[in-house]
């Protein structure tokens, strides 16, 4: 085959791959729009917290353990009640949004970067690097990550940064495994051999031809991972290993309210409800993205 012919064939192959998803496009259902709206609203709440909420770390001893009220003993409205120190639960939830979203997105970025890069590399090169990385991945999956997270945080100390690192590293395996298998299947296609035969460099092949093909898969995993990261952060904070008091976080609030569950259920239940809704909404969006972008990932 002459050079132009190969080039045209290659072009056809890549274009066929990248545009094939466009035909899947259908109207976005209202539930997904609502879900995106919910996350956007959370982000705005987090950003505007100082203007909307009361001081989340200062309570009023006169207004301790108040049930949801518009006229509290301290003269202020507490639509979701107050906690054992007289702090406004709604304000603490709003500030807690900052923790959840920051840790969630930062963790997804770390996990995606590490896992995505490793998956691309081992998928393309294979060999002993592949064996080593995948064995490490197996090892990480082989025992409850929460134990490792607790151990690492016990070593490094509980802080915002360490929380992001630990939650981020908890998720790399999924990206690495899925991207690896995708790259493996693309790698076997003729257009890749053709490019190499034409003298194309491997990094260029990865950036120009493989990345666009795995981008939608990556998006799907990232969305599902975001929900998982937010829940993991809350779990660690609930166990006392995440965000330390008095800084408000959803998991920490649920933990603090546990001792008052019988008399003041609102301290735990409202942050928990917001956490559950966020997790549901984000993972639902991920499921939908998966069905639209990448039907091969379906199941589970």
């Amino acid at each position, binding site marked *: 085959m002459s050079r132009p012919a190969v080039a045209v064939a290659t072009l056809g192959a890549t274009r066929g791959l990248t545009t094939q998803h466009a035909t899947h496009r259908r109207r976005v259902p209202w539930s997904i729009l609502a879900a995106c709206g919910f996350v956007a609203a959370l982000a705005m709440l987090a950003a505007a917290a100082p203007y909307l909420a009361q001081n989340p770390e200062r309570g009023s001893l006169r207004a301790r353990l108040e049930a949801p009220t518009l006229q509290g003993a301290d003269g202020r409205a507490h639509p979701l009640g107050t906690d054992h120190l007289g702090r406004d639960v709604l304000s603490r939830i709003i500030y807690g949004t900052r923790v959840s979203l920051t840790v969630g997105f930062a963790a997804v970025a770390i996990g995606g970067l590490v896992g995505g890069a490793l998956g691309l590399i081992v998928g393309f090169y294979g060999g002993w690097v592949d064996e080593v990385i995948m064995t490490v991945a197996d*090892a990480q999956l082989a025992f409850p990550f929460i134990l490792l997270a607790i151990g690492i945080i*016990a070593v490094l100390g509980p802080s915002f940064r360490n929380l992001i690192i630990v939650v981020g590293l908890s998720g790399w395996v999924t990206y690495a495994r899925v991207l690896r298998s995708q790259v493996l299947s693309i790698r076997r296609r003729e257009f890749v051999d053709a490019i190499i035969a034409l003298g194309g460099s491997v990094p260029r092949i990865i950036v120009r031809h493989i990345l666009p093909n795995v981008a939608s898969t990556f998006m799907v995993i990232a969305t599902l991972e975001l929900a998982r990261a937010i829940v993991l952060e*809350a779990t660690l904070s609930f*166990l006392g290993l995440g965000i330390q008091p008095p800084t408000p976080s959803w998991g920490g609030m649920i933990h603090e309210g546990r001792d008052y569950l019988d008399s003041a259920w609102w301290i735990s239940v409202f942050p928990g409800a917001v956490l559950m809704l966020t997790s549901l909404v984000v993972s639902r969006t991920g499921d939908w993205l998966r069905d639209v972008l990448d039907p091969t990932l379906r199941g589970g």
Partner: protein
Amino acid sequence: MHGFGAFLAYRLFRTLIALWLVSTVVFVVIRLSGDPVPLLLPPDAPVAEMERVRHDLGLDRPLAVQYAVFVGNVLRGNFGRSIHFRQPAMEVALSYLPATFELGLAAFLIAVVVAFPIGVFSAVRRNSPLDHAAMGLALIGQSAPTFFLGILFILVFSLRLDLFPTSGRGDWRYLVLPALTLGAFAMASIARITRSAVLEVQRADYIRTARAKGVGEFMVIAKHTLKNAALPILTITGLQFGTLLGGAVVTETVFSWPGMGRLAIQSIYNRDYPVVQSTVFIAAVLFIFINLVLDALYGALDPRARAARS
């Protein structure tokens, strides 16, 4: 069959390496997490006494030597003595295993017994109101954080309705809420995968053939569909059993269930290295063992899997 045997042997080899990696990482992380000796002795203990205890526990030796000793001991099945309980660490960990096993098994059984019929029903009566309700619940179950689910169950079923105790281990009533909490995620996943697996199979030609030759609807479902839908269901179910082990850590903490997960967390706080090592080791062995059994089952059930994997 030779190829499949080789495949299993290869898996076993990777498994052993994974176990070694897990124990090494845990060794390093735990050793770095601090000195357990001050937690063992009264605060006014003389320095000489602290040094003596440290020497007795071998903690004054270089980390590399400690690691070599550790590996040598593990290979001989010796996980050291618990610093906190002053008993062999593996014995301590194993003595907490039955409670976790009881909880895990109950959670798993509840999950399968509830989820499997719901999944089949949802598929058969696709798009009925009951299907939508069941799948909506399953979605919630899949995304609800385990620890919050536990708190909600305690609030509603223990504190308000006074049906079950809030925490601890005793007769069956103590088991209900923790098992439901731990099993919720697995239940939701199994219900969803069962539904989609049954739907998938129902589109197949052989189901149409069965219907065409006059097989009754019940037999079509019970015999032709379920048999073929079994593989994906089995895979997900087995994987869920593995994740149950992780969920047990959180569930046991919420319900003060005296199992291995709670022991692991407490041992990390106590810096009781040998016990942490033992619990992690047991968890990893269980998880890996379950996966190996799954692989074997998969190969036994589906000749195509054997061919594809070897």
